[in-house]
């Protein structure tokens, strides 16, 4: 056997040896989707993240990351410039051509399925944990999330009300509300509320008259949406909103975007917080 062949054989043996025992996560991660990024950090792999999309705003350490732009409009070369070895992307990431270009450049791109439910959150955590070889941490995280969710449900068991909740998504010049099959709808039901517009599907622009007809007891909004609309006081000047039971009682619940709709490790806490807002009689005990 020639020396070079010996070295090659040795290398191959060492290579399989280390591959079998590999427990280290990939060294350079790019995460796309605020929920995916949050899970990576919760699993303790945050040190390996070298870049994320603009929706990745939690935990605070993500603020220092290079931002690759909005998750639906990625730039393949920009992502490659961060020299990632693994890209973890939520299934919202795109456009497909950019993901194909990244794969063509030889980078592993793993798409994590999302679903707006407790099982969806658990699955998401398990999938990310598996990609990072941190299955045990993933299981602990899922157990903690399910525990917090169960605690929130126990706390809410004494609730005597089931308020009608209207989720309002403010975008420039118009209000959209969330009907069935949306993240806000799932959160409202998990927290023991009723969706005031359960008869519509998805996000829809709603007229002020229909808002009055929906007669919500509570308005639920995202903090960035409230900021964009000009603050909580400005919300009630929107036509129609002041004329609802929620408007007359000035009941507005504002929660952080990613906290309320991330469906990740903080799901149980978010359900508990939303439940306390929706059922003051629970919070008072």
């Amino acid at each position, binding site marked *: 056997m020639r020396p070079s062949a010996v070295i090659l054989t040795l290398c191959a043996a060492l290579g399989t040896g280390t591959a079998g025992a590999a427990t280290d996560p990939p060294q350079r991660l790019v995460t796309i989707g605020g929920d995916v990024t949050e899970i990576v950090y919760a699993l303790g792999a945050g040190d390996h993240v070298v870049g994320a999309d*603009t929706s990745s705003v939690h935990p605070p350490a993500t603020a220092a990351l*290079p931002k*690759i*732009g909005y998750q639906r409009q990625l*730039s*393949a070369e920009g992502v*490659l410039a*961060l020299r990632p070895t693994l890209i973890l992307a939520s299934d919202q990431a795109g*456009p497909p*051509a950019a993901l194909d270009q990244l794969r063509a450049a030889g980078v592993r791109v793993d798409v994590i399925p999302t679903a707006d439910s407790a099982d969806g959150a658990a699955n998401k955590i398990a999938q990310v944990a598996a990609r990072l070889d941190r299955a045990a941490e993933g299981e602990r995280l899922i157990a903690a999330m399910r525990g917090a969710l169960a605690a929130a449900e126990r706390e809410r068991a004494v609730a005597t009300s089931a308020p009608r909740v209207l989720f309002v998504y403010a975008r420039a010049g118009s209000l959209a509300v969330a009907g069935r099959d949306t993240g806000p709808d799932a959160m409202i039901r998990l927290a023991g509320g009723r969706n005031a517009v359960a008869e519509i599907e998805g996000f829809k622009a709603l007229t002020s008259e229909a808002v009055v007809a929906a007669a919500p007891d509570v308005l639920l909004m995202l903090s960035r949406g409230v900021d964009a609309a000009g603050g909580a006081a400005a919300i009630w000047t929107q036509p129609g909103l002041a004329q609802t039971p929620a408007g007359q009682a000035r009941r507005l619940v504002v929660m952080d975007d990613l906290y309320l709709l991330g469906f990740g490790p903080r799901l149980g806490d978010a359900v508990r917080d939303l439940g306390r807002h929706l059922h003051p009689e629970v919070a008072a005990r």
Partner: protein
Amino acid sequence: MTLLAPAAEPRRGARLPRAVPLAVLAALVPLAVLAALGIGAVPIAPADLLALVAARGGWGTATWADASRQDAVLFAIRLPRALFGALAGATLAGGGAAVQALFRNPLADPALIGTAAGAALGAATAVVALTPAPAWAPDWLRLAALPAAAFLGGLAATAAVYGIANRDGRTAPATLLLAGIAVNALAGAGTGLLAFAANDAQLRSLTFWTLGSLGSVTWQGLGIAAPLLVASLLGLLASARPLNLLLLGEREARHLGIDVERLQRRTVLLMALGVGAAVALSGVIAFVGLVVPHLVRLAGGPDHRVVIPGSMALGAALLVGADVAARTAVAPAELPLGVVTALVGAPFFLFLLRRARVEE
């Protein structure tokens, strides 16, 4: 009013031979393409660039640590992007020059006769009807649906404008422009309706599409669009001389043996074909078709044997250059290309207008 007077008869004698401005403009294209290949979020030194190209050609090998990543960026991302940018810029600007000549109206551009608005309506239809794509749809269909719908939308809107304005084989330029305005409004209303029906994700895709980007250009897309773009470019180049004669006036052109209706039909069709194919892959890119021909006329005079090829060269160089700016200004993210072209093009155009008013 030299700026807004493409209708002037080509002057002779006083100007430089037309090869001079053309050669200068043509030299800009390879420079812009070279810059597009060398500049970007992933650094590639000029020497490495040469070595990578040589390695692809079979001369030597690229073996340094980063070579495979740089090779992928260069050949999978930057090269198809730069080539498409050059072809699309040439088509938008060349199409703009031809349409301005055809209507003897310096404000005409491909957007004005419905092509861009129709393409936007087609794209909006695909985004709203097909996002998320049905589970049975194969990958190629998901990727091809939007550009195909945009292309068909652009062609259909242009055909509608042309069909409305055409009576007994004669097309009045004024009627064509008015029909273009009406079809633009209709297509805009359709796009607005779809935006209203869209969910949040679809709306965001739609917004990004209307701002333009070369980010989705792949070899596959280039392979489909390039034959259409090249056919359009060659056809428009061949129209330069008859368009010159048309500037003398329709009747005079007829006396000189030009079949004016056929020239109009051919030019509109060639423009819609090329602009439709360009816009289908890149989204709407503002201002190139309007501004570039004016610049070329300023530099090289009103002869369409200079204006059309010159606009193609300058349009190609400008679009490729604007894409470099879009890719690098906020790296690792990317600006929409239409924003860059309008941000640079609109103030410059206003400056030209102001100067023309002063000279008046």
